[in-house]
């Protein structure tokens, strides 16, 4: 059987990869890709703890479902913002988007 440590180390690695993407990428869509990787790593942790520590209480899976919903909402609004900024400013490089009103 697989010990829980494998899942925890895997999700830590996936989380830090996502964090690197968020910190190092220029493009706003690429930053959102990094955020998605981080949310997925958190989900793996939630489900692993549900399966290994409290398999009788379903709370871990419920929390993961809520994270799915929040991720979908975040991506929808985030990509709408990116498209809106692209129409007005013709750029989606995060460093160049530094004005509140154009």
């Amino acid at each position, binding site marked *: 059987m697989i010990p829980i440590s494998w899942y925890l180390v895997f999700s830590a690695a996936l*989380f830090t990869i996502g964090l690197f993407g968020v910190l190092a990428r220029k493009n706003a869509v690429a930053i959102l890709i990094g955020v998605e990787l981080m949310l*997925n790593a958190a989900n793996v942790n939630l489900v692993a703890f549900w399966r290994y520590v409290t398999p009788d209480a379903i709370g871990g899976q419920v929390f993961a479902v809520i994270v*799915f919903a929040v991720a979908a909402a975040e991506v929808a609004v985030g990509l709408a913002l990116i498209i809106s900024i692209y129409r007005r400013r013709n750029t989606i490089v995060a460093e160049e988007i530094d004005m509140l009103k154009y």
Partner: protein
Amino acid sequence: MTGIQIIFIIVAVVTLGAGLMSVITRNLVHAALWLVLALLGVAIFFVLLNASFLAVAQVVIYIGAIAILMIFTIMLTRRVAVGSADSQLNANWGWAAFIAVALFAGLVWLLSGWNGFNITAQQMSPRTDTIRQLGTALVSPSAYVIPFEVASILLLAALVGAIVVAWDRKS
């Protein structure tokens, strides 16, 4: 080493490699496709963890909706997303890599101090129906109906908000 451990290692290596490619590759369309592979790997982990509903939801929501939405956005903003010849990483990527590695080392160090670090899962009886348990818990007033309703309101607000924000007023 049992067969399931070999499967775990193969899927973990593929998922982490795809995740790494999705944050460093220069072409953003390729980055989104690598993200799809990483999300698929996470779905396989949900299967290994007996969370069958989450595995299906991962494929339908993440790969079917979120990744496709990202590919659409990348193609709508294609001139700046793909055309530039210079690197897609900003000037501080060295610091970002340092912070990521340091955080990984810190997380592993912190987790290895936990005394349940090497526990294995109890065998789940084949009669346990986790999908039924999950469905009941999501709508039962004594369990998680309030977070479920709040999530539905959040999704509605995000739907309306996305349409309002992305609306092209000029045309």
